[in-house]
């Protein structure tokens, strides 16, 4: 007499988990994401290489055309080629995304590390400051900056950068605090290493590691914030074809021409997703969970 107790449901859950792990470690997704990112970077640096039409050329004979072989992603109300316009807007969108995230993380790092390391009243003051900023919605902070300084690309970068920084700053502070309390920091102290050495050898690398992913996630997020502001008419002004501005411009025609909304939206989504996939891959590499190829 032999019997086995195995629940089929668990077996299934196990398989699902394995597929997910495979997706995380399988590099095909990473290759696709890299291809997209490469495309967007070429578009940002040398848009003419990828454009099929002049993004600003009006063609009043063919307004609001659906995607076709002549116009891959259709045309807008003035007959401008949407694909070429999206390519043309990539540079601005990307610089907003990268710039805003870099600014946001720089501010967050300086304030968060200061708060986490110093403790005492400095930590208290900074933490309350983060709390106050955090209590205000990011969009509100961004709106504030835009209304104060006008609508240019650099304003958008500063607005989105400052607006998203309190969340990161709090994360950095907690990371620093938790690394500061670890046994290896104490072990380094017992060895007699200087505080500076402990900071650069242990605290910063271990506290910043998880932020690498946050950075890549943040780029996509920042582009979405900037697009949101442009959509509200507070971003880069037409005829610029920043992705958010495209969304804003297509809003009036969405009933007749769905592609004016969908296509820039897909561009934003693809970019954000690609950056995220690469970010996660990089983080896994950093944590040594994937062997180097």
């Amino acid at each position, binding site marked *: 007499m032999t019997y086995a107790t195995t629940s089929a449901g668990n077996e299934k859950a196990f398989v699902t988990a394995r597929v997910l792990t495979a997706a995380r470690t399988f590099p095909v997704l990473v290759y696709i994401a890299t291809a997209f990112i490469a495309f967007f970077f070429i578009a940002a640096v040398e848009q003419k290489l990828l454009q099929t039409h002049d993004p600003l050329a009006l063609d009043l004979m063919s307004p609001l055309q659906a995607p076709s072989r002549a116009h891959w992603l259709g045309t807008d109300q003035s007959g401008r080629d949407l694909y070429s316009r999206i390519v043309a807007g990539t540079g601005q969108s990307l610089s907003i995304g990268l710039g805003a995230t870099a600014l946001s993380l720089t501010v967050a790092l300086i304030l968060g590390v200061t708060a986490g390391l110093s403790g005492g009243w400095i930590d208290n003051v900074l933490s309350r400051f983060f709390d106050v900023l955090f209590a205000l919605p990011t969009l509100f902070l961004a709106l504030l900056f835009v209304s104060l300084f006008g609508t240019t690309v650099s304003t958008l970068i500063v607005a989105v950068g400052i607006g998203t920084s309190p969340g990161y700053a709090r994360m950095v502070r907690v990371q620093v605090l938790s690394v500061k309390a670890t*046994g290896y920091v104490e072990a380094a102290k017992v060895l007699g290493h200087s505080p500076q050495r402990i900071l650069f050898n242990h605290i910063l690398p*271990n506290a910043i590691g998880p932020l690498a992913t946050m950075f890549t996630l943040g780029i996509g997020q920042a582009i979405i914030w900037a697009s949101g502001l442009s959509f509200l008419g507070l971003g880069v002004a037409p005829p610029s074809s920043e992705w958010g501005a495209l969304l804003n411009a297509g809003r009036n025609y969405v009933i007749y021409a769905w592609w004016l909304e969908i296509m820039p939206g897909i561009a934003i989504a693809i970019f954000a997703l690609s950056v995220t996939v690469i970010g996660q891959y990089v983080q896994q590499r950093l944590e040594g969970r994937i062997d180097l190829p």
Partner: protein
Amino acid sequence: MNVTYSAALFRQNATHLPVSDPLLTVENLDVSFGPAHARRAVVKGVSFTVEEGRCIAIVGESGSGKSVTARTLVGLTGPRSHVQADRLTFQGMDIGRLGDKKWRALRGKRIGFVLQDALVSLDPLRPIGKEIGETLLAHRAIRTRAELTERVLDLLKLVGVPEPAVKARQLPHELSGGQRQRALIATAIALDPALLVADEPTTALDVTIQAQILNLLSETRERGKAMILISHNLAVVSQMADDVIVMRHGEIVERGSSEQIFGDPRHEYTKCLLKAIPSVRSRGKRLSSSSAPRFISAEGENIKGLTQSDIARPGRPLLEAERLVKRFRGPDGRLRTVVNDVSFSLGYGETLGIVGESGSGKTTVARMALALEIPDEGEVTFEGAPWTSATEKERCLRRSSISVIYQDPLSSFDPRWTIERIVDDALTKRDGGSSLDRASRQSEVSELLDLVGLSPAFRTRRPLELSGGQRQRVAIARALAPRPKIIVCDEPVSALDVSIQAQILDLLGDLKSHLGVSYLFISHDLGVVHHLSDRVLVMNHGDAVEAGGADDVFLQPRQPYTRRLVAAVPRFHFQAA
């Protein structure tokens, strides 16, 4: 192959069985985990029987499958497990194919289960009285509320919880560790089960509390209940069990009566386990079968360059602690004195053991010796110069002379660093260590790893990839790298299996005799401290209770507390020849 082996053992054993059916029969039990393509066998072909009123102990080190075997008997092996057995019967009932519902009816009522850590096993938001009552209600053993209260109080009284009426309304975290464990045992015996399965019931407890819990379990046994006791502590087992099963890597390596296993062990592994236990008798002897590392090369040259016999040894002690007092603010805002007026000194090449139960302040003393905590009163002087009263900047220059080994080495390593970098980082703190070039530092690292018994292949590994014993070896290599005069060892072997513990203790002993380092050795385990220490300091609730030579303190304790502590250490009932 193992199946036939253990089946044969079973049959051989079975011939001695009485005619009546045993309470529990396990025949050829296999337990494995994981999906079909990557199944990992954890228990392989285990067979045994439990008679009414007998106590069977299953002993083994971590990974031996003893806990999984116990959990099989209460149907709690978890969702990813595959349980297979030729026979698995309890009171004549086939428990191998029970569904969840049937298990719930059986568990608690006819088979009680006691786990290691009561704080984890008890619902943190439920008063313990309710927790015990739950078991009674779940099996509909009680009808009225008054009857329930009465029964719960009876049970708490039975397991020896003081003031049962008060304690019944308290939450688990409000009770002491011993009381919690008692409450947990009360839930297990609430319905008077015929079989009690106790998985490491005393492992998380202090030695005096452990003695009380063992008494309680013995009383339960005397009421005629059968018991399966899972433990890694052989002394505990020798006090309780009628029969002992020794497991290793999921298989039974030896079985027999308590007298036979502890008095005349036959299997090599059992002998090793017994020999590995540090105690009075093991002083000055090696515990493991590993040989001492090479300290001197064939040419008689001191190859490690670590020997400190040439160090001038002035009459003054190396480290002196003068009337240390440390207070911490508790969660209620009140100051608690954690260390109260403790003085000690540590000479060159000497080992001072500090023993005490949890909360005795021994770790705080260690941290003050390392100047990680600054005493509120009193002072530590190191090599005749102020230590705790110096500024951190001054201390930084001298810190490399005092190293530390923690209980949990894993958390003391930067997880991103390789072993080489960890040891190398400590090497830079040696006098002139940072001026060494890359190649000579690399060879130093290899030598240090060799010294602690690790091959150079470990250099590129990361802490997470090592076993507990290997990690502790790396920790020792790191502690040795700056050529310290003192190594503070805070429970360095408490998290290790007894055979690994034996190797690490041997290593520490070898290093002491060859390198002349001093140890400040903190442990709750009296046997470990006695094995290694020259002098001993006994602490209780922040006070230094007794101090003196290790043999004096442990063999002729003068203070009542020390006497109680020594008496509470479980001893072997059957001394090996």
